[in-house]
C-alpha cells in the first residue's frame, strides 16, 4: 500500500537561494514525523509547498499514491492537509467560534458550529469555550483554537510549526496527548520544532534538513539531542559553560512597580519588586500575556513609571525616556522583532542607528554619520554571523532568526550595564540560539546584569543564575537556578496558587 504522503524530489529556488533541492521523504499513516533544521534550512518552504502556499519548481507529491498538486491552501485542505502556524492568525476582539468561522469556506450555522467545536475539543482533551473572546485566552488556549480549527476539517495530514514554544510544561503535556491520540487514529503529523528533547520523546521519525537538502533521516529516540543538533548544523555546537555566580553591586531595582496597562487585552503590573546585580542573569519564566510585555515596556521607558519606582545604579530613572535610559547603559531588546525592535522597511544600518545612536556616537550634532553607522551595523553582522547580502538590505528581508541575532547583537555590542531581553531565541534555530545564549553569558561574565524573559524553561535553566516567575502581573521572589523543579515553576506559571500565596503573605 502506498504511503499517506510521499514527497519526491521537491525543488524550489528563490532568486539567489536554493530553498529546497531534491527533497524526498514519506509520511506514514499514524506517524509523527519531525522536520528538523536551522532557520533557512528549507523547512518552511517545504511545508508551505505541502500546504499549497508555494509552488515547487520540480518534484512531485503523492497522497495515497495519487498525485497531489495543491494550487492554494483551500485545495490542500480539501485533500486533507491542515496546518497550525507558529504565529496565530486570530482576532482578539472576536470569540473563538467567530474566529473559526472566518477561516471556513462554508461555515455552518453558529449553533451547530459551537456544538461541533465542543465535540471536537472534548474528544481530544482540548477544553475550549466557543463563546469566549480570544483576547481573554492564554497563548496555550489560543493554540487550541488553531488546532481545533484544523481538526474540524478532519485532516489526514497535520502540520505543526513550532507548536510548543509558547506553552507551559503542563500545556505541552496536554498537546502531546492530543497529538498521540491523533496518531492512534491514523493521522500523519509533520512536526517542526527546534526543541530536540521534545522531538526525541514525541516523534517516530525525523528528517533533517540543512541548506535546503535532506541530510539524514533517523529515529530520534535513538539519538541524543546533541547528536541531532550536530546533524542539523553539521558542526559542533558551542555550549555555555556552567560557572559560579557571585552577585556584584545592585544595578537595577524595581520598587513596588504597579502600572495599569492601556491595552484592553494587556496585563496590569502589580507591585513588582526586583533587584538585579552585576554579573547576574535573572531568568523570568511565565506564560505569554502575564505581564512580560508590560514589564519590558516599563524597564525600557516606553511606558513611564513614577520616578522612584525604577532605580538604575543609584539614580532614580522611572520618569526617563528610552533614549536617556539607553545613554546611561540600560538597554533592552523587545520580543517582537519586526515593527518593535526593528523597522522592517528600513535598512540594517538604519536599524543599527535606531538604538545605537547615542552610545555608539553615530551622529554629529544630530546629523547621521553614515560611515560610522554602517560600520557599527557591519560589526553586528560579523560578530553574530547575520546572514545578509549587506547592511543596506532591509530588516524585513532577513529570516526571523537572522534578524533576532541582529537585534540582540545590536544591544550586546553596545556594552550595556543592564540588558533586558524578551524571548531572545523565539523561533530561532539551535545554532543561532546557542550563539545568542553564549553571547549573553559572556556579557554577564564581563559584569553586565541581564534579565532574560522567556517561556522556554530549558533555556532559562541553561543560562540563568536566578529564576523568578511572572504570573498575572506579579513577579515571584527570585530563587537560585536549580532550587526549583520544572514542575514547581510550571505550577507558579499557572498563576492562581501564586496569587493565593501572595494573598496569604
Amino acid at each position, binding site marked *: 500500500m502506498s504511503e499517506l504522503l510521499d514527497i519526491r524530489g521537491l525543488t524550489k529556488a528563490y532568486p539567489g537561494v536554493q530553498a529546497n533541492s531534491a527533497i524526498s521523504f514519506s509520511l506514514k499513516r499514524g506517524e509523527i514525523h519531525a522536520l528538523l533544521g536551522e532557520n533557512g534550512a528549507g523547512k518552511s518552504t517545504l511545508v508551505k509547498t505541502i500546504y499549497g*502556499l508555494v509552488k515547487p519548481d520540480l518534484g512531485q507529491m503523492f497522497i495515497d499514491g495519487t498525485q497531489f498538486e495543491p494550487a492554494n491552501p483551500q485545495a490542500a485542505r480539501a485533500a486533507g492537509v491542515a496546518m497550525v502556524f507558529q504565529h496565530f492568525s486570530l482576532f482578539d476582539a472576536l470569540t473563538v467560534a467567530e474566529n473559526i468561522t472566518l477561516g471556513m469556506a462554508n461555515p455552518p450555522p453558529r449553533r451547530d458550529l459551537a456544538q461541533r467545536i465542543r465535540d471536537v475539543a472534548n474528544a481530544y482533551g482540548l477544553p475550549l469555550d466557543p463563546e469566549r473572546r480570544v483576547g481573554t485566552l492564554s497563548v496555550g488556549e489560543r493554540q487550541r483554537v488553531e488546532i481545533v480549527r484544523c481538526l474540524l476539517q478532519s485532516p489526514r495530514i497535520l502540520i505543526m510549526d513550532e507548536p510548543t514554544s509558547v506553552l507551559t510544561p503542563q500545556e505541552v503535556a496536554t498537546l502531546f496527548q492530543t497529538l498521540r491520540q491523533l496518531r492512534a487514529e491514523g493521522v500523519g503529523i509533520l512536526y517542526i520544532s527546534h526543541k530536540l528533547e521534545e522531538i526525541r520523546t514525541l516523534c517516530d521519525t525525523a528528517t533533517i534538513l540543512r541548506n535546503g537538502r535532506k541530510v539524514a533521516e533517523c529515529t530520534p529516540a535513538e539519538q541524543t539531542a546533541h547528536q541531532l543538533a550536530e546533524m542539523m548544523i553539521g558542526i559542533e555546537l558551542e555550549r555555555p559553560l556552567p560557572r559560579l555566580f557571585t552577585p556584584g553591586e545592585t544595578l537595577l531595582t524595581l520598587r513596588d512597580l504597579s502600572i495599569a496597562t492601556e491595552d484592553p487585552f494587556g496585563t496590569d503590573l502589580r507591585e513588582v519588586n526586583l533587584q538585579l546585580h552585576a554579573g547576574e542573569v535573572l531568568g523570568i519564566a511565565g506564560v505569554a500575556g502575564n505581564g512580560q510585555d508590560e514589564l519590558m515596556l516599563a524597564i525600557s521607558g*516606553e511606558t513611564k513609571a513614577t520616578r522612584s519606582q525604577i532605580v538604575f545604579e543609584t539614580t532614580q530613572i522611572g520618569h526617563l525616556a528610552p533614549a536617556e535610559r539607553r545613554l546611561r547603559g540600560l538597554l533592552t531588546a523587545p520580543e517582537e522583532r519586526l515593527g518593535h525592535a526593528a*523597522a522592517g522597511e*528600513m535598512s540594517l544600518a538604519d536599524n543599527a542607528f*535606531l538604538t545605537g545612536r547615542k552610545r555608539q556616537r553615530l551622529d554629529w550634532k544630530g546629523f*547621521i554619520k553614515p560611515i560610522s553607522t554602517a560600520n557599527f551595523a557591519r560589526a553586528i553582522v560579523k560578530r553574530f554571523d547575520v546572514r545578509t547580502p549587506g547592511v543596506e538590505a532591509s530588516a524585513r528581508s532577513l529570516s526571523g532568526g537572522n534578524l533576532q541575532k541582529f537585534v540582540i547583537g545590536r544591544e550586546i555590542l553596545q556594552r550595556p550595564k543592564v540588558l533586558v531581553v524578551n524571548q531572545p531565541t523565539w523561533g530561532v534555530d539551535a545554532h543561532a540560539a546557542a550563539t545568542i545564549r553564549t553571547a549573553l553569558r559572556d556579557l554577564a561574565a564581563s559584569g553586565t546584569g541581564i534579565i532574560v524573559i522567556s517561556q522556554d524553561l530549558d533555556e532559562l535553566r541553561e543560562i540563568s543564575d536566578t529564576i523568578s516567575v511572572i504570573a498575572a502581573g506579579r513577579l515571584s521572589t527570585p530563587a537560585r537556578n536549580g532550587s526549583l523543579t520544572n514542575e514547581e515553576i510550571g505550577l507558579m506559571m499557572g498563576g492562581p496558587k501564586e496569587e493565593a500565596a501572595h494573598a496569604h503573605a
Partner: protein
Amino acid sequence: MLTLEPHRAGPVKQLFTPVWAILATMLAGGLLFLLLGKNPVEAIRIIFVDPLFDPFSRSELFIKAAPLAIIATGLSFGFRAGVWNIGAEGQFILGAICGGAVGLAFYGVEGVYVLPLMALAGMAGGFAWAMIPALLRTRFNANEILVSLMLVYVATLLLSALVSGPLRDPDGFNFPESRQFHDSATLPILIERTRIHIGIPIAFLISVGAWLILQRHVFGFHIKLMGAAPRAAHFAGVSTNRMVVLCLGISGALAGLAGVFEAAGPVGQLVPSLPTGYGFTAIIVAFLGRLQPLGILFASFVLALTIIGGETAQFSLQIPAAAISVFQGMLLFFLLAFDIFTRFRIRRGVAGVA
C-alpha cells in the same frame, strides 16, 4: 473574490508610477473632454504642452510651482510620519493674513527688514494655525485630518472678515481688500518683465534643506521611523506627541510662508480671492513627488502646468473651471491606484488562512 497580496516592486518601478499616473490622467482627461464635446488632443495639448512653449506661461509656471513646492515640502514631513495635515490651505491663508498685516502696519516705512519680518510673521501665523489641530490631537486625540480641514473654512472667513474690517483699504471705496503693499513690503522681482520673484529661489533652498534633514538628520530619521514602524519609533525614544507637533508645525509654517509670498508677490495685497487652492493641490504634489524633496519640485511643475494650461483651456476651449479640478483629482486617484498595483499583486480567489 479578488484579493491583494503584498509584492515588492523595485525602486525603478516605484519611481515610474507617477509617470504612469500622469499618462493615465491625460487619457482619462481626454475622454472627459471628448464627452464635453471638445477635441481631446487639442485640449491635452493646450494644458500640458503649450504653456511650455510660451515665454509668459513659462515664467508663470515658476510662480505657481513655488508655493506648491514650499507647501508640499512641508506636508511631506508629516505625511511620511503618518501625520495628516489636510488644512495647509488654512495655514496658507493665516500666513498671508499675518505677514500681510505686518506689511500693512509698516505701510510707507522703507527698510530691508520689512520683508523678513513679514515672512517671519507669516510663518508664525501658519504655525499657530497648525497648532490648533496639533493641540487637539495630542491632548484629546482629535483626528487632525478633520480638524485641520475644517479650519480651512474658518481661515477663509477670517480673511474675508479682516479685509472687510480692520485691514480694509481706507481709500478703497469700501471694497473688501487691503491696501496695495508698498515697495518695501513687496517681493523683489528677479527677472524684468516677468513676475519671477525672490520666493522662487527660496523654494529651491527649502527643498535642499528638507532633503538634508530627511536624508541626513536624526529628525528626518525619526520621521521615517515613525511612518515605517510606530512602535519601533517609540522604542527608539521618539515621542509621538512631539512628532505630531513638529510635523504640523513645520508644514504650517511653510504653508504660512507660501501665503506671505503669494500676498507680497503676485497678488500684492490681501483680497478674499487670495487663496486659490494651493494648499489642497500641494497634497497632490506631495504624493506625486513620492514625498521626496526633489520629486516634489518636479511634481509642483506638473501641477502648475495643469493650473496654467487649465486657465488657457478655459477661455480658448470654454472648458468649465471645475474640469481642471476634476483633472487634478484624477491625477491623485490614478497615482494612488497605480501605487496599489506596484505594491500589491492581485490574485483571484479567497486568501489563505495564513
